[in-house]
Structure formats: C-alpha cells, structure tokens
C-alpha cells in the first residue's frame, strides 16, 4: 500500500504540498488559540506557536525527500542553482569551459581516429577467421606465394574452408571510348568467397576458372561499370579489351576490402591463370602474389600453422629444388592490417589523455581558488541544515554541468579538427575512410566529460568542505588558505610534469624525423620523376626486336622534351619502391642442381643514362653505354655490397655472373655505391642487399615480351617545369595515341611517403605537447597569481618594513621556481620510464637522449618563469599603504 501512496504522491506533488501547508497552519492556529485562552497576547501567542515548529522549510524538504521523485526534484534544484552560480561568475565559467573544451575536444578527435582504425569491426563476415598468407623464405619472412605452391596448398590443407591469392596489376583498356589505364587485380577463384564479397549483378569466379589456359573472363568494379557502361545490366556478357585481348564480363563487384588497398578502387578483376607471365607456372618464382584464407570454424592459429607446416614440409620433400626451406607465414588479418599502426596510436592515445588530465587539473585549481570566496555561501547553507553530503552534491553538480558544456563544445571543436587531421594522415593509413563521429564517439565524449567533471569537482569539493566545516567562520580565513595552496601546488607540479613528458616525446620524434630526412638514400632524389608506361596493345604480340625499337623511340622522344636532362627505362626494382630479385651463380661454376645453391641479388634493369638520372657516382670500371645492346656481349654492374659479399677485397671486374633467367652470362664491368632499396632506416637491417644492374636492351627475349605493359620510366629534369608530367604526357600521345603513361610520382614524394607515418605521429605529438605547455603555463600563472593575491597584505608589510622590490621579486619567483623544479624533476623521471614505449618509432636518438631532455627542460623552465612574470610584477608594484589598509 505504501507504494501506491508513493505513486499517488508523485503525481499529486503540488496538492500534497498545499495540504501539508494547510495542516501545519491549522496546527499553529490551534495552539495559538490555546495560548490566547491561557492568557498570552495574540501576537505572542502566534509567535510561540510558530517557534515550536522550527524550520518549516526543512520540514518540507525532509518530508519531500522521503521518496525518489522528491530526491530527483532536489537534484533538479541543485542544477538550477548551479546554473545561477555559474552565470554569476562569467569569467571563471568561460575559462573553465574553454579549458575543458580544449582537453575534451582533442581527446574526442583523437578517439574518433582510433575508433575508426582500431575498434570498428572489419566489414567481412566472421573477420576473426581471416588470415593472410605468405611464403617464409630465407630473405623474406612474408614473401610471395608461387602459383604452383598455392594450388598445392589449397589442395592439401585441412584447416581452411577457403584459400585464395591476389596480385595487383594494370591493364590498358581500349575499344571503349578513350584509352584508359585500369587498376586491376589477378585473383584466384575463391577470392570473393574468402572475403565475403557478393556481386552487384552477375556472378563471381567459379572453381577452376583460375587455371592457366582457362577462358578469359573478368569482373568489373562499380566505378568502371558506371563510367563505361552507365551501370546498365547489359554489361554482362560484353567483351572487355585489356592489353589487346578480349575478356568476357561475367559480373560486377563492389570494392573488396583487402590488405593491399591502393588509393584508387580496383577497376577489373581477372583470374590469375590469365597472366601471361612466363614465370607463373614456375614453383620457385617470386611474383608478388599474396594470399588470404578463411579458417574453418573452431580451428585455432596454432592448429593452422601446424597443418601448413605439414603441407610445406611435404612440398619441400617432393620439390627440393624450389621449395626447400620454404614455409608458410600465417598472420591474423586484423593484425596484418593494423599491427604496425597499433603501438603508435596507443602511445598517442596516452599523450592525448595527459592533455585532458592537465585541463582537468587546471579547472580543479581554478575551483579551489574560487572556493575561498564561497565560504559565506556554505555557512548559510549549513545554518539552514544542509549536511556535508548535500553540499558536496551541489558542488559536484556544478562541476559536472561545466564538464558537460565543455564536452559539448569540445565535440564541435573535434568535428573540425578531425576533418583537418584526416587530410594529414599518411596515405597508407589503414581504414582512414572509416573515421567519423559516430555513436561510439558520442558516448566516449559523454563519459569522459562526466568523469572529468567528477574528477576536477570532487577533490576541491572535499578539500574545501573539510577545511570549512572544521573552521569556525572567520572573516579572513588565512589559516585555511595555507592548505588550499598545497593542493593547488600539487596540481601545478603534476601538470608541468605531464607537459614535460609530452614535450620530450615530441622532441624525440622531431629529432628522429630530421635524422631520417638526412639519410643519404644513395642517389639524388631531387627533380627525378618516375612513371609507368604501357605501349600500344598491338605490341603485346610483337617480336622482341620491335619492342626494343619502340622503347628506343620512347627514350629518345622523352629525352628531347624541354627541361629533360636524362631518361632511363627501368625494369625490375626501383629504389624505395617495388623490389625485384634474381637468382644467379658466379664465374665458371656449373649450373647448380638446386635453386638453394644459387644466390639472390636485387636486380635493376636500366639504360645507360640511369647514373645521370639518379646522380649515382661510379666507383670502378665503367657503366653501360649505347654500345652495350642486344647484339653486344652481356655486361653487368654491381654495387659495393655485392662486391664485398662475393669478392671480398679482390677486384670484381672481369668476373662473370650467370643469371638463372635465360641463363644469361654477363661480365662485370663496373662497381657503384649501394642504394637504399628497402627503406631509409630499414635497409641496413635487411639480409638481402646485394644489387646488380643489367642493360635494358640486353633483357632476355622472354622477359622483353612482357615489357610493353607496365615498364617504368625515370626522368631527371632541371626542375623548371612544374607540370613536367603533363608535357611528357603530350609527348607520349604524339608518339602513339594508344600508348599510356600513368602513375607519376617524384622520387621526393616517394621518400616523403615512406616517412609519412612517423611524420604524422610527430605532428600530433607536437600539437599535444604545445597544448599541454599552454595549459600548464596557464596553470602556473593562475597559481602564482592567486598566491600574490593572498599574500598582498604580507607583501605590504614587508615593503613597509624596508624590503626592496627586488626582494619581493625573489620571494614570488622562488615560489614559481620551486614548483617548476619539482615539475621538471617528476617529469624527467616519468619520461625516462615512459619514452621506452616509443623506442620502435625512434631513429638516431635513444629514448633517454640527454640533449633532448635538457633542451626541453630548459624550454619548460623558461616558459614557466615567463608565466610567473605578470603576477610577479604585480607583486612588486604593491603599494604598502593600500595593502595594509585592507585588513
């Protein structure tokens, strides 16, 4: 029954209040009447009756709070009161909200990046079953899978429900309007099954259609479908002419989420058996084919690895020449996608958390400072019967309100900064498209606003109430402000420590980056342009002589273009770009029976002008000339690493290398310095570094037949023409309308992109560190200001007693210096512990680099002292007569 009456009570609240009022009034009237009857004068009689009741407001409040709705009502009252109080103090409120908006905003912005990249589930069905595959070989932990190996892996394994491979490629599309270069992918039949992609119309590949020699079919992407077929359903069954060969369109497929995503969506998918590369059926070939597979339900990674070990072990026994020492590398898909990025993001997440903490500490400090002015207000409320819990609830309501408003503003700030940050992200940052403000982000913002409000509200509330309730009411609470100082001092010291940590992190990163920039790649990347070229599709069936003639014409025409200083065709590896390796043996050795007895080298197939284009010096002997063509004896040039590894200190000139491909036997005619193939900083630690250069025209005929599609051209210009590629494109078109040049990049861009991830972290860390520094200096300014305000009287006394301005300066500044030194000390200790987490990201500096530590500490010290400057000047200007007067 009591519940019913409670329920009734909630809906009849106003009525109940009136009733209670009336009841109490009746009671008072009755007593007053009795008092009069007993002889009291009427006003006294009433007064006496009322006095017995005491505080009617408290009565009503107590009666009301007896149920939940009453409680909620009093919370609402707190809220309204909080709004009034905050509006009365616009200065404090504004600064607090802005500080919180800054802290919460950058956390929200960063969280939305982390959310999109790390937390959002992958778009595939059952993504936890997906695994990436590669061959593990002596020089490559996760290398290319050869096509014959893939076929056997697919057949023999027991742990995968489906397995597939893919390889990126480019085709020239003709016969449908303008000739276009298409982004393509060779895939095996099960590729779309593994990744869970369904066609928009038509079908995907069927088992068996990826075999070598099967019928030429293709799947097109949504973009191409729209561009060339106006998204009409009759695209199915139409022919697509790629590199001069006709493929039947069997379906349209939306973009597939695979590991290797280029910036542009894939236009066409072709079964891998259609690749006319003569090396495709070779078990030992490394053609850049990568694999992906789906585990059977319930199979663990250990079981899968064990099973694949069995499969590759069997293959090694049956084909020892090509497969000895080759195993399978399995990585969880998500890890393969994010593995490199995860530690960086987590470090940055910690950094941005520090910024929020500093912001909260600042607002807590402000709140503490303000609470001295509210002692009277608290006194009145305590006299009215409020308990400590009630007061704390009131203060918390104010801080949570501040935090929520700050958080809301921060959300808006985050929205803008996220968009700016997205433009800055490294191009290969996985899942960048998935970053936006969604429900996760909103919830995150709300939660940290709430936590922030409680954090910066609770501590000052507790402290100021403790002090207040212990004290009696004094007009000048000087004793209590001593302890309040300590809390503020602790906060400021912690703030500066955290700012120091962030500044050191940013400093280390920027030194790393400058070291990386200064690494000599082995060539001069300025004013070098690289792009790919595909000859007209009619050349696909041409004989090697015609192909060579075509390339000669290409080189001559480009070299004649204005501003061009040197041109070289390039096949095989490109420094800091795609790699290509060859097997070989030396001198007069007989051909080794197994590939395991041959050696690997990185191979560059270039023209005589290459040294001029790349400005690589010559150390010994000579480089190629136009005379080293297809009719002359084969020659080769090696780099210093090759010379040292295979010839020691002996003179390598005159020795011979025989390449496995085409069994080409070349004489070594020169030695050049090493260039960094694998990465500016990672090249040193690679195991395969030997390099060899072969003249382009001396490529074996079998390889030359593949050259018409996707050969690289490297051009050095004088740098005057900023639209160089456009000029070259016009030159190209004049040569042949069906010849396509595409994919232009300058070598500087390539180098810059290899550093993009590190640059991104550096910029973010620098931004966070700057924000932390600003907030911390505001913090110390506030504390010293407050200190000066509290001690104005004391300073007045000192000056009156003969202290000089200089002494006052020392007094105040020493306070500031003490705080700063403590902050730097704690910060340094914390940095030494924390920067160890960054070691993987650093290059050329240790995580405890003394130069950075000292430099940053000095910067922080100077900024902190500068922040103390204004309050110190104010202290020095204290007029003792005024100060002493305000007792």
């Amino acid at each position, binding site marked *: *029954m*009591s519940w019913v*009456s*409670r329920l009734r009570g909630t809906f009849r609240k106003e009525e109940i209040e009136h*009733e*209670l009022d*009336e*009841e*109490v009034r*009746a*009671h008072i*009237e*009755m*007593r007053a*009447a009795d008092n009069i009857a007993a002889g009291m004068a009427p006003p006294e009689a009433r007064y006496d009756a009322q006095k*017995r*009741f*005491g*505080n009617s407001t*408290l*009565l009503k409040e*107590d*009666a009301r709070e*007896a*149920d939940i709705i009453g409680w909620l009502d009093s919370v609402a009252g707190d809220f309204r009161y909080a709004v009034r109080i905050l509006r009365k103090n616009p200065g404090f409120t504004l600064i607090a909200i802005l500080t919180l908006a800054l802290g919460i905003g950058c956390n929200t912005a960063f969280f939305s990046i982390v959310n999109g990249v790390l937390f959002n589930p992958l778009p595939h069905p059952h993504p936890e079953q997906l695994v990436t595959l590669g061959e593990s070989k002596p020089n490559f932990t996760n290398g290319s899978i050869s096509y014959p190996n893939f076929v056997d892996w697919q057949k023999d394994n027991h742990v995968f429900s489906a397995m597939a491979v893919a390889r990126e490629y480019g085709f020239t599309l003709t016969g449908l309007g303008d000739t276009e270069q298409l982004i393509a992918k060779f895939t095996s039949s099960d590729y779309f099954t593994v990744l869970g992609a369904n066609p928009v119309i038509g079908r995907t590949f069927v088992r068996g259609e990826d075999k070598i020699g099967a019928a030429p079919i293709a799947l097109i992407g949504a973009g191409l479908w729209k561009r060339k077929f106006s998204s009409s359903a009759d695209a199915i069954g139409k022919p697509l002419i790629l590199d001069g060969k006709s493929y039947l369109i069997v379906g349209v497929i939306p973009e597939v989420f695979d590991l290797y995503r280029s910036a542009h969506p894939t236009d066409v998918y072709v079964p891998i058996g259609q690749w006319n590369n003569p090396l495709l059926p070779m078990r030992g070939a490394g053609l850049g084919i990568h694999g992906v597979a789906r585990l059977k339900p319930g199979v663990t990674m250990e079981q899968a690895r064990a099973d694949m070990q069995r499969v590759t072990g069997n293959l090694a026994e049956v084909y020892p020449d090509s497969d000895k020492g080759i195993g399978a590398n399995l990585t969880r898909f998500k890890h393969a996608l994010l593995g490199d990025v995860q530690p960086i993001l987590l470090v940055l997440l910690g950094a941005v958390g520090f910024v929020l903490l500093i912001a909260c500490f600042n607002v807590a400090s402000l709140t503490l400072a303000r609470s001295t002015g509210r002692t009277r207000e608290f006194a009145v409320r305590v006299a009215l019967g409020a308990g400590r819990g009630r007061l704390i609830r009131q203060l918390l309501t104010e801080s949570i309100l501040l935090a929520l408003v700050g958080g809301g503003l921060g959300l808006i700030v985050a929205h803008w900064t996220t968009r700016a940050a997205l433009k800055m992200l490294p191009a290969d940052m996985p899942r960048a498209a998935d970053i936006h403000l969604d429900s996760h982000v909103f919830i995150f913002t709300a939660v940290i606003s709430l936590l922030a409000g409680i954090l910066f509200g609770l501590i000052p509330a507790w402290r100021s109430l403790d002090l207040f309730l212990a004290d009696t009411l004094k007009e000048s609470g000087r004793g209590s402000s001593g302890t309040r100082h300590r809390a503020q001092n602790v906060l400021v010291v912690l703030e500066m420590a955290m700012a120091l940590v962030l500044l050191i992190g940013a400093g280390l990163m920027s030194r790393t980056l400058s070291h990386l920039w200064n690494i000599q790649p082995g060539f001069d990347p300025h004013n070098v342009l690289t792009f790919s070229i595909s000859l007209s599709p009619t050349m696909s069936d041409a004989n090697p002589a015609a192909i060579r003639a075509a390339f000669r014409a290409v080189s001559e025409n480009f070299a004649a273009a204005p501003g061009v200083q040197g041109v070289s065709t390039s096949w095989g590896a490109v420094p800091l770009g795609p790699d290509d390796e060859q097997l070989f043996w030396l001198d007069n050795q007989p051909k080794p029976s197994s590939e395991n007895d041959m050696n690997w080298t990185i191979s560059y197939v270039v023209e005589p002008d290459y040294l001029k284009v790349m400005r690589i010096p010559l150390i010994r002997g000579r480089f190629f000339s136009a005379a080293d063509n297809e009719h002359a004896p084969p020659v080769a040039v090696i780099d210093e690493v090759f010379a040292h590894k295979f010839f020691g200190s002996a003179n390598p000139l005159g020795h011979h290398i025989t390449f496995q491909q085409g069994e080409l036997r070349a004489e070594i005619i020169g030695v050049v310095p090493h260039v960094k193939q694998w990465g500016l900083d990672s090249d040193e630690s690679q195991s395969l570094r030997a390099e060899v250069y072969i003249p382009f025209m001396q490529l074996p005929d079998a390889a030359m037949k593949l050259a018409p599609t996707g050969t690289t051209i490297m051009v050095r210009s004088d740098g005057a023409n900023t639209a160089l590629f456009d000029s070259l494109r016009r030159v190209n078109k004049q040569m042949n309308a069906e010849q396509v040049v595409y994919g232009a990049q300058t070598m500087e861009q390539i180098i810059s992109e290899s550093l993009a991830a590190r640059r991104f972290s550096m910029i973010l860390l620098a931004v966070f560190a700057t924000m932390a520094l600003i907030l911390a200096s505001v913090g110390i300014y506030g504390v010293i200001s407050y200190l000066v305000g509290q001690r104005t009287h004391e300073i007045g006394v000192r000056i009156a007693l003969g202290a000089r301005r200089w002494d006052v300066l020392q007094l105040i500044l020493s306070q500031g210096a003490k705080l700063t030194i403590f902050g730097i000390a704690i910060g340094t200790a914390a940095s030494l512990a924390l920067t160890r987490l960054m070691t993987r990201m650093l290059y050329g500096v240790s995580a405890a680099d003394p130069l950075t530590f000292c430099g940053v500490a000095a910067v922080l010290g100077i900024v902190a002292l500068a922040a103390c400057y204004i309050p110190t000047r104010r202290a020095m200007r204290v007029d003792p007569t005024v100060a002493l007067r305000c007792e």
Partner: protein
Amino acid sequence: MGSNKDVLQGTLALLVLKTLARGPMHGYGITLQIQMLSKEVLRVEEGSLYPALHRMAQDGWIKAEWGTSENNRRARYYSLTAAGRRQLAEEEKSWARLTQAVAQVLQHA
C-alpha cells in the same frame, strides 16, 4: 544502537500509535494528548511530528483524512489501520523487553 535521533523516532512512533488507538486525532491533538498523559514529562517536538506522521502513513500504519476541528477549521485527522494495530502490539512488546533488560542491568551492575 543507532543515533539518538533514531531511538526517539522509534519511541515517537510508538507513542503516536498508542494515542491513535484511542481514536482518530489531528496532529495538534496528538501533541497535547502525549503531553497530558505523560504529565508534561514528554513534549513532542513539533518539527519532528509531521515527518514522523508522513513516514508512518507511507508505511501504512496510519491513514489520514480531512475533517473539521473543534474551532471549525479544516484539519487532517489520523487514524490507525489494521496493520497499524499489529505494529502497535509489536512495538509494545519490544518496548517491554527493552525496559526489562535495562532494569536487569541496572539491578545487577
């Protein structure tokens, strides 16, 4: 043992229930009745009476109705419910036990 306030509250409830057992009464009347029956020893703090009445009404021991008082004013009359009667019996028993125990301690201390 509970704070001072609690013991008094419990006792107040007992006194109010006993008073109402004689018949329905309004708040002022309850105050006077307790005062008179205890020969002026016990004075009900008027500030604590109405919250106590409110609580007891919520617990279902008493119910309230509007009526007219002796001097023709509208006043709220409280009366005992069946549950209230049972509660009164319980409280009387506990009180007896309590006083007996205290008396025993005082005798033998």
